């Protein structure tokens, strides 16, 4: 903008000078076509991001200082968690439960019996304990996210793991080291997408023989999803 204004006045001033016009044409051209992206945004430092960059990786990177106990967790649970997730982590009114179906049974029979919300829990699905801490610290309690301290988040994470029968009541301290080293029951079952897992073809005629088995509406209020 600045350059083109300059050029315009230069051209007006030396309207009979071809050289000035040519130079300005070049300047204009470079401003329009070779402009490198600059002057937009402000640099930011890690120090400015302490309140924002609270993400915790699966391997525990990003877990903060601090710790909690199961006793503290039990108390917080009663006040901030139980109304949705149940006193014993059983889940009420359709909210997620902590202890899902037995891991072995769940996965052996997944296709027939259900990877559904009634069966899903921390014990049979969550791959990494630090992820649980991350979720609780950033998004729980549901009605007041980011209202718990790091210590409180550790305590609640521990209590949720206890309700899911992943740790026992002998555990004394839940902190970064504890979560980083805790082996989650379902972790070894994970693998990354290998789809397409089915293959169809574009049959155009005589695509099947015999009768079709056509089924109409037969179920109601049945969904294997969740929130």
């Amino acid at each position, binding site marked *: 903008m600045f350059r083109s204004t300059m050029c315009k006045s230069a051209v007006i001033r030396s309207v009979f000078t071809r050289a000035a016009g040519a130079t300005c044409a070049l300047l204009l051209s470079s401003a329009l076509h070779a402009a490198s*992206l600059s002057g*937009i*945004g*402000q*640099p930011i*430092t*890690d120090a*400015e*991001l302490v309140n*924002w*960059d609270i*993400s915790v*990786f*699966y*391997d525990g990177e990003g877990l903060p200082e601090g710790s909690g106990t199961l006793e503290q967790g039990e108390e917080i649970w009663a006040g901030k968690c139980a109304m949705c997730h149940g006193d014993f982590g059983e889940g009420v009114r359709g*909210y997620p439960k902590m202890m899902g179906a037995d891991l072995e049974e769940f*996965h*052996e029979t*997944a*296709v027939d*019996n259900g*990877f*559904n919300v009634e069966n*899903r829990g921390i014990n049979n*699905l*969550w*791959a*990494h304990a630090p*992820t649980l801490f*991350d*979720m609780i610290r*950033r*998004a729980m309690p*549901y009605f007041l996210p980011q209202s718990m301290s790091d210590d409180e988040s550790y305590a609640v994470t521990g209590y949720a793991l206890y309700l899911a029968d992943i740790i026992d009541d002998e555990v004394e301290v839940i902190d970064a080291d504890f979560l980083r080293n805790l082996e989650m029951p*379902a972790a070894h079952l*994970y*693998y*990354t*997408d290998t*789809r397409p*897992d089915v*293959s*169809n073809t*574009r049959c*155009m*005629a005589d*695509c099947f023989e015999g009768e*079709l*088995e*056509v*089924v*109409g*509406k*037969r*179920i109601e*209020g*049945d*969904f*294997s999803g969740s*929130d």
Partner: protein
Amino acid sequence: MSEDKKDRIDNDQSDAMQRRRFLRQGAAAVGGVVAGASSTSALAAEPLAVPPTNKMMGRPVVATPYGLPSKFEANVLRRNVEWLTPDTTASISFTPLQDLHGIITPAGLHFERYHSGAVDVDPEAHRLVIHGMCERPMQFTMEDLRRMPSHTAVHFLECPANGAMEWRGVQMDSVQFTHGMASCSEFTGVKLTTLMEYCGVSPDSTWFYAEGADGSGLQRSVPLPGAKDQNGQALSEYDQNEIYKDVMVAYAMNGEALRPENGYPVRLVVPGCEANMSIKYLRRLKFTNKPLVTYQETRHYTEVTSDGRIRQYTLVNEANSVITYPCPDKHMGGKGFYEIRGLAWSGRGFIKGVDVSTDGGKTWREAELVQPVMNKCFTRFKIPFDWQGEEHLIMSRAHDDSGYVQPTLKQLRDERGTNTIYHKNSIQTWRIEKSGEVNNVQINNV
């Protein structure tokens, strides 16, 4: 009285009568070709009344400074399913695909999916931060983003749970509820690659994650070239090298600022991928060399497969299609001509073609694709259909430029069982009953 006889009588009448005759003949001609059996209406004796709107003054300009649909379209609404979720702030609403034409979803009808409710983010205070493995970590205001080289593209967004209620059997007798977790919009914003270049993202960065400014602080990891999962398994070539190229940071949708429901003032758009990755209220992108493996990548958006293992990072929405007219929400109106219409889309690229069957999949005809046909975008298809009151099983089958052909429900169930949740992209069958009613059915054995 036959048409001919009536016409002869009319021939002797006044100009006004001749005008009526002309209108009737027009209606009869149209009826003969298009509406078939409904020609009785062409014989109505009464002249058409002058509509009341011809005899009144209308509303002035800016009576509705932001225009709204006609009051007669009040039934065209997003809807939710009450029993689906325990809470409407962590829930989903569905786009009324049955009432839409073309490929663009009006912003007010775009499906909603919240994990902690919609929020009103102040655009003046909002910042987008880009940091992590890059030379120049930066923060951008909304004005900064609008100054940057812009990118506009039309893409669909689809929740991977689209169709999830139908795995075990027919449940939702409505295309709004079987396929309405998908919408398509023109987005404008800044390409991810522009931002990556500007911030000097390291070539060693193999992932980035995006985070939202809502109560759920939603986070998703997105692969870059070289991406491996937490166990060292490489993502597919496609996921590593193609997904990020179309990614954008969007501030506009269908020509105006994003709506709060869709992530105002700025959201990530990851075209072709499960819409959960297109983080709304976007506040941060961090470039890394590993995935976060967030809550949204373990407890949600993973599937137990038939071998008892858990499949993660099923990012791409594979080719899908559905007939939106006729459908359980739009029954037949009488014998004669119909145009079967529908939508097809593929997360891997362009829709190459759509085949339509009206006999349960025994024979198929290739439908016409309505231009424009675009990358990772709704594609409208249509094909003429003469209905003479028989029962029909109608279905559509899309294929894309990767060679993938939309599978049958049986193929998906044989592979994945009936209790999975996500990525149900199988061929949808509607049954046209002899009565003209249209119902959702499933073919279990082919």
